[in-house]
């Protein structure tokens, strides 16, 4: 057995202009081992991975020792690692659709690496690519283009591409970002099988359920430092550091289940809806009613039409059949929406304060109307001087909620409002939403792909994808 560990990092520091971005990190990983790095955005976990890869931006300084498969890189120029990319160390990028070549078939993308990095003949390379696809359960998908693959399948192709050069160390940067629960389990299973085959894995994530599935070692990062390190099972069962405890408490799986709300006259109700997008029937026979002070969760896999359901209730999309009834006497602008990506919901060129002032002027509110709501949502007024891309996702989502509350909404459609946020921030935003719904007697439709989150927010859920089975048209698709 090879004595050299797959990866050894000692005293690694990354700094920019005198400020430490990663401080004194020590890691060790044997062949077949898994190391999960958990931490909030900006804590330095991605920089740590980039330092290992040797892809740090040139303006950052680093020092310390990095050894990959027994080769020491501490004293060497970062460019020296280039020769090892693909061969000894590989990166599994975020969002596999974006990293695969959209114009190349899956098999060719894998074969290309075997031929060009592995220096094999094209015939051999094709055979190896076919075999790799077979082991990943993609035997029949080799001829497909990336846009014809599901998220989980694309991630499997990306893994095959990353490992085709024979790399023994795989760095996966948030491999489950944007994937729903089923795909997430698929990716976990895939990474585990690679570890069993002898590859060492570094996985960066903020998804605790995913980390639990992977097992192995875990390092928790906070403010540039590794604050806690150990076996995942033990760490999750008995966290020592306060941040780890908060992180675990924020996991929706641990939230107290929500209590049902007494039924009242619904603000908006829809009966027997059928919706098509791009010639494809998304769902039919779906009925839903949202009452004041009530949250209704719409769940289902990605692409099943959850967002379309919300848009139909808002009147942004016309259903193929069925009826939507709104409570009488409510103005159109009292039906509002919170967006998955709050940056895209604000005019990019204007400061946030201008967006709030515009709404006040449009609806004849006094210009100091936002201040009470901002205080309630714990938004610092200085934030309003910045543009949407200059504040964090959690802060911006709260400003978006403040803007919605200005017009005294009756119904709010929250479209995966926290899917891009860290667990702790997610919990803050969700707590706030729950409080606001209760205080204002707001009717809310919450779209989410996270079943645990839905259960923690409400007792009333509608499964959008299940409607197809009920309607009996799944076979027709």
């Amino acid at each position: 057995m090879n004595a050299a560990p797959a990866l050894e990092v000692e005293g690694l520091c990354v700094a920019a202009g005198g400020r430490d971005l990663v401080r004194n990190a020590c890691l060790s990983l044997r062949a077949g081992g898994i190391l999960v790095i958990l931490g909030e955005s900006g804590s330095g976990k991605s920089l740590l991975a980039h330092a290992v890869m040797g892809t740090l931006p040139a303006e950052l300084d680093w020092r310390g020792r990095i050894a990959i498969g027994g080769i020491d890189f501490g004293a060497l120029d970062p460019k020296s690692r280039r020769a090892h990319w693909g061969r000894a160390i590989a990166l599994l990028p975020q969002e596999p659709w974006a990293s695969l070549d959209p114009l190349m078939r899956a098999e060719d993308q894998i074969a290309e690496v075997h031929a060009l990095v592995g220096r094999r003949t094209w015939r051999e390379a094709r055979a190896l690519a076919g075999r790799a696809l077979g082991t990943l359960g993609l035997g029949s998908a080799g001829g497909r283009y990336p846009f014809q693959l599901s998220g989980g399948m694309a991630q499997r192709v990306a893994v095959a591409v990353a490992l085709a050069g024979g790399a023994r160390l795989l760095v996966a940067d948030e491999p489950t970002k944007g994937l729903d629960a089923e795909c997430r389990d698929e990716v976990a299973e895939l990474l585990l099988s690679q570890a069993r085959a002898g590859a060492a894995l570094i996985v960066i994530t903020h998804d605790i359920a995913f980390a639990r599935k992977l097992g192995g070692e875990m390092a928790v990062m906070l403010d540039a430092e590794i604050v806690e390190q150990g076996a995942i099972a033990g760490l999750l069962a008995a966290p020592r550091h306060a941040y780890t405890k908060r992180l675990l408490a924020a996991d929706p799986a641990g939230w107290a289940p929500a209590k049902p709300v007494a039924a009242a006259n619904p603000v908006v109700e829809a009966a027997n809806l059928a919706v098509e997008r791009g010639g494809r029937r998304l769902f039919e026979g779906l009925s839903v009613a949202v009452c004041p002070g009530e949250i209704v969760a719409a769940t289902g896999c990605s692409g099943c039409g959850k967002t379309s359901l919300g848009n139909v209730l808002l009147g942004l999309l016309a259903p193929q059949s069925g009826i939507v009834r709104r409570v009488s006497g409510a103005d159109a602008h009292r039906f509002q929406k919170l967006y998955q990506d709050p940056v895209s919901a604000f005019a990019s060129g204007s400061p946030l304060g201008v967006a709030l002032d515009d709404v006040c002027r449009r609806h004849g509110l006094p210009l100091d109307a936002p201040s009470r709501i901002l205080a309630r949502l714990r938004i610092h007024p200085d934030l309003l001087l910045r543009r949407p891309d200059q504040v964090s996702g959690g802060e911006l989502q709260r400003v978006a909620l403040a803007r919605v509350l200005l017009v005294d909404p009756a119904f709010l459609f929250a479209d995966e409002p926290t899917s891009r946020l860290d667990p702790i921030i997610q919990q803050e935003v969700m707590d706030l939403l729950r409080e606001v719904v209760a205080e204002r007697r707001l009717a809310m439709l919450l779209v989410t792909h996270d079943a645990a989150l839905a259960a923690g927010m409400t007792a009333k859920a509608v499964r959008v994808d299940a409607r197809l089975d009920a309607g009996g048209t799944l076979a027709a698709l």
Partner: protein
Amino acid sequence: MSSRFVRRAIGAACVGAVVLLAILGPWLIEADPLRQNLRAALRPPFGDDLLGTDHLGRSVLARLAHAARLSVSFGAASAASAALLGTGLGLVAALRGGIVDRVAGALCDATMALPGLLLVLILAAFAPGAFWPLYLGIALALWVEFFRLVRTVARSRLMAPEVEAARLFGFGDLHIVKRHLLPHLLPALGALFAFGFGASVAAVSTLSFIGVGLRPPTPEWGNMMTELLPYYDEAPIQLLAPAGLLFATVLGLQLLAGRDTK
């Protein structure tokens, strides 16, 4: 210093010099651009007149300055008219869609089917030597580019969630144009305006040069080149000066408006 900065600086210097000449020149230079003095014909530069005199003894510098005023104001007027017309129609077409979009698109296609200069020639035939057919023809040839750009960009921006959110808050078209469309359009519109400005300055000189546009004795760069062409041997500086100014104007505008290629 980045090459982009150098390019912008050269462009600004060229355009700035021509604009200064157009504004201050006719005011500072005492000589009358139309006053002939046949006894002082084709005087060399650096004598009584800084750039010498033409074949009719008129001061070349005074004529250049008045011509610059004409070209600059003409270019600005026709590019601005084209920008207003094209942007307005493009925004309406994108916001309204349907029949409005189709009619505006058809007008645009019909205009593009005619070469720009041909359009000007047709209009110039109605009133030879007059100023308005040139202005109208060039503005009509230029609005198409503004229309196409604005319509395409606005249509894609209107699909963005930020516009959907604004509509949910009850905002109207004017607000959406101001907050969500114009900030994305202005940089490209600025570049297009500079190109249009340069194109109309070049067009008016081209037409005068071939004798279709403004007629002598109006001082105009194209006119001056035609008039002095037979005397290129005796008065090379006088012939090259208007060509140089035209070149500096168009080059400067192109440098100012050019996109960065990386």
